[in-house]
């Protein structure tokens, strides 16, 4: 079992590294294909995104190398410190953040800009791993569960304040980790029920939904009337569930849509489920117009992917992506380039590549001796998962358009660097999986 005799390079997990490099390579191809024109004098043009992305890749690999040479205990020891720094940066961003399309989630240092929200994922992962693995933590107690949740939610709240709700949503993935570490099953069930209820709220008229929910509750009450007579608690639970459903659909969703979410986010959510935004969530001047702009993005994205067919139009032959019909196509909608040029076979292969990477990370997680490494690995897998699931789903119309990147593929320095760092820290920890890290 002991591998410590080998150098740290020999102990790095080759499969993960290969999957990582494969995804980065696909990303470079996709970004190149989107901006390439047959009239370009050379493929090595610094004005093109793929060259800039290549430089960021070199920076990322260099950072990876540094991480591999770092002592594995270093990461757990700086966990809280780095988390605190991340929070400070996030708070700073709330006040002095630079705007990109309505949000203010970027910090600029001269000509270099970066998104603290993107980087904070790494440090939040470390902090959660550190906290949950600490011997003093008893995750069965409510107090520690709340602290754990707070660790995940604090950056999320700060990011919401930067008008970057999509990115904040990513932090919900840490609940998956906490579930793995002992949160009750009911949390997962409630989460999924909440998603189901939200979708129902979106798809079905408010009043009709009220009748349905009430009808269902009455039906259950009639069916279980004998049980109800004996067990008062069951009756209370039934009433409570009914109450929560009604409260959620009649009050919470309308409140959130009216007061919390941005106008474009409401539109996106409704567009995804194929509905027009109800008048009550619209500003008076927009009423009666039906959905417009956000529908365009998904529509163009679906055309690009759908026109790929089984085998795709071929590399560099994507008419939709090359001609910029799909908005933000080398960042959030990079999957369109794959779907259009390589068709179903290519996109399915890419999905399987991601699944492979995530499952491999789970395998790595489960073989760790120290809880810190395991929890950290789960954090990495969850972050990858939520990015992957939401991003691809939104391009094919399965989820609302939430501006988050496709890990390792999307153009963007901060994104590539932070995902690389996540992976390389994991690889470094895995290399020392026999060592107890606290």
């Amino acid at each position, binding site marked *: 079992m002991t591998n410590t005799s080998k150098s740290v390079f020999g102990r790095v997990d080759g499969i993960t590294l290969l999957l990582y490099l494969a995804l980065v390579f696909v990303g470079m191809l996709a970004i190149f294909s989107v901006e390439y*024109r*047959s*009239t370009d004098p050379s493929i090595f043009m610094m004005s093109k995104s793929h060259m800039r992305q290549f430089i960021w890749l070199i920076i990322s690999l260099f950072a990876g190398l540094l991480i591999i040479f770092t002592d594995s205990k270093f990461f757990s020891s700086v966990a809280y410190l780095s988390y605190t720094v991340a929070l400070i940066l996030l708070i700073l961003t709330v006040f002095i953040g630079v705007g990109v399309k309505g949000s203010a989630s970027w910090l600029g240092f001269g000509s270099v800009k970066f998104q603290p929200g993107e980087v904070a994922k790494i440090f939040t992962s470390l902090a959660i791993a550190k906290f949950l693995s600490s011997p003093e933590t008893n995750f069965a107690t409510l107090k520690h569960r709340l602290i754990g949740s707070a660790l995940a939610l604090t950056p999320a709240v700060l990011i919401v304040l930067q008008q970057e709700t999509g990115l904040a949503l990513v932090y919900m993935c840490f609940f*998956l980790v906490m*579930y*793995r*570490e*002992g949160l009750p099953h009911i949390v*997962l069930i409630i989460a999924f029920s909440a998603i189901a209820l939200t979708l129902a709220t979106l798809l079905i008229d408010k009043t009709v939904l009220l009748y349905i929910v009430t009808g269902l509750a009455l039906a259950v009450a009639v069916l279980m009337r004998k049980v109800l007579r004996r067990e008062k608690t069951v009756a209370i639970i039934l009433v409570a569930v009914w109450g929560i459903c009604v409260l959620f659909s009649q009050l919470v969703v309308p409140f959130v849509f009216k007061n919390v979410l941005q106008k474009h986010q409401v539109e996106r959510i409704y567009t995804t489920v194929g509905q027009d935004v109800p008048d009550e969530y619209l500003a008076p001047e927009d009423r009666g117009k039906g959905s417009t702009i956000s529908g365009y993005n998904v529509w*163009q994205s*679906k*055309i*690009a*992917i*759908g*026109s*790929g*067919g*089984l085998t795709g139009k071929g590399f560099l032959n994507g*008419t*939709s992506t*090359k*001609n*910029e*019909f799909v*908005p933000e196509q080398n960042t959030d909608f990079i999957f369109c380039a794959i*779907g*259009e040029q390589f*068709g*179903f076979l290519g*996109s*399915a292969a890419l*999905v*399987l590549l*991601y*699944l492979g990477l*995530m*499952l491999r990370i*789970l395998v790595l997680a*489960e073989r760790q001796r120290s*809880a810190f490494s395991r929890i950290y690995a*789960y954090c990495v*897998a969850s972050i990858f*998962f939520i990015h992957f*699931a939401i991003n*691809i*789903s939104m391009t*094919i*119309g*399965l989820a609302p358009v939430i501006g988050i990147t496709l890990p390792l593929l999307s153009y963007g320095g901060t994104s590539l660097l932070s995902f690389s760092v996540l992976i390389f820290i994991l690889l470094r920890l895995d290399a020392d999986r026999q060592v107890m890290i606290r």
Partner: protein
Amino acid sequence: MSFASTPRRYVIWSIFTGVALVIIVKLLFLQVFNDQYKILAQDIAITKKVIYPPRGVIYDRRGKVMLYNQVVYDLMVTAYEVPDNIDTMMLCNALGIDTTEYKKLFHRASVKNGPRRKSVMIEQLTPEQTARLQENMYAFPGFELSERYIRTYPDPHAALILGYIGEISPSKLKEQRYASYRQGDYLGINGLEYTYEEVLRGQRGIHFLERDNFNRPTEPYRKGALDTPAIAGKSLELYLDAELQAYGEQLMANKIGSVVAIDPKTGGILAMVSSPSYDPNLLRGRHRSKNFARLELDATKPLYNRAIKGEYQPGSAMKPMTALVALDAGVITPSFGFPCMGGYYNCGRRIGCTHSGGGHAANLRLALANSCNAYFVHILRLLVDSKKFGSVKKGVQRWHDYYSDFGFGHPTGVDLPYERGGLLPDSSYYNNMYRGNWNSCNMLFVGMGQGEVALTPVQLANSMCIIANKGYYYTPHLVKSIGGNPKDTILRKYHVKHKVTNIPDTVYNIVALGMQDVVERGTGRVAILPGVSVCAKTGTVENKAIVDGQVVKMKDHSVFVAFAPREDPKIAIAVIVENAGFGATWAGPVASLMMEKYLTDSIATNRKHLETRLYNANLINPYVYTIDAAQRLKDRLRWETRMERTRMSDSLQHAQDSIRIKRWFKKTYGI
């Protein structure tokens, strides 16, 4: 520890795998089981670009260019691509404008198609502007010189023949002939540009281009595999002699009228003047509609091609044709004479005759030379009353058929649009006119070219061709060959020989000699050309106009028809000068000078005085303007009356309808 968490580990496994599977299934439906996205992607990303070929060039008979495509440059700008730091002053200097003007133009261009798309900032740069800009274009990113052709006429002549092009009108878009045109396309609107539109325009090419989300073309679709090239329009080579045409227009300046000269051997039109005319360059480019409106309002109607649309009584110029018909029908022989004593009295009233001396109409040649009215009136009566035909009605019909064969009474088929046919009465025309009760006396004036007969100048010139050719003609036409090919199928109809009489050549010689006598001894002495036997006939045509509701006799039209040389005719010509007086005074010199110019390529010095006299003459009568203004006023009043009447009948109809409905209600429901 790991024991307790094992099931949870699989829950997370399942969530990951489940979501990935859902995505793959959705992709399967989106990409494999659905074809509509492929079509949509084509529609949004592929654009067709129509490549317009240059229109065909038009040459005269000597290969001189009459109409070609000039390259002009437009300054295009894509506002989005113009950096803030360009040297505006330098650009303004090159363009010769100031900065405020520049800002105005730039703003307008960036608004027109949006800042991301190219739009025209300055149309049709002058050569100086182009030259100054071309050197420095590199300094102005976002700006571009775009090449374009415009139709250009090197000489300000032959406007009505060459015609002009313009944007297609909505009504024409619906016509079958223009099925392949789109809004904004240019096409020939008049003249040869109109008639030979299909030949001149060439074949448009189509390039398939990919386009981006701002509808900007990016690169050829499939590397241009589906593209079709544009094929340039074919050229037209004309019979027209540009020099002769220009000379004719100069001679006819400040006169209203027309000249048509035809090569009798081919039917090719050597010159076709309609005066007044205009500079064809006025009707091109951006000022077309403004100039068009101005020309349209001109009382002398410069846009009206009198050579094919003007219908004139031919007067004495018609006499040779009367003779031809009578000869061919066999009612007279060349030796037939009429004892004219200065008039014709057989129909109750006197028809005057210039000559009164006995024997001036002793035979056909003499009658022609002396232009004896009585003689031709008489032979017309002989013709229509001939026993051969049975009745005067059948006789007139026969006469009509002859003239119809000569090309009268219907458009000749010249290759210009909107040709008119003139007036040629048949027996039903007289039946209508006289309610069936008429005889040859009622129509005898047509024998001397007056009365109910009118010819266009091109028909008149064609009649000379018949005599020159001794019995046949080719339909007058302008185009000799298309793209260098004289046998093009479009021209086939102009190669058909129309044989219209069966008169022997010897008899034709007598008619021709009679006409030669007109020049050498008669009224047409002005047309004598040394060494050339010119055959001609003068005409002085009475004409009337309606002024203030009264028929007023106007100054006579001056008419002259001729061909030369008699032995081997090379040119047949008809000249009409409106309201100018005797045929020999004005039309004669014009015809004579043009024949001299064509046959000898120069004007003899002893005839220069004729030229000078013509150049200096202004024969446009002031009353032309009065009549025109009155006519316009009348048209306007008529139009207003008609509109008023329509309005009234509409409201009357409306009232009647409502009464009818009320009645119906009353009948049906008792209310």
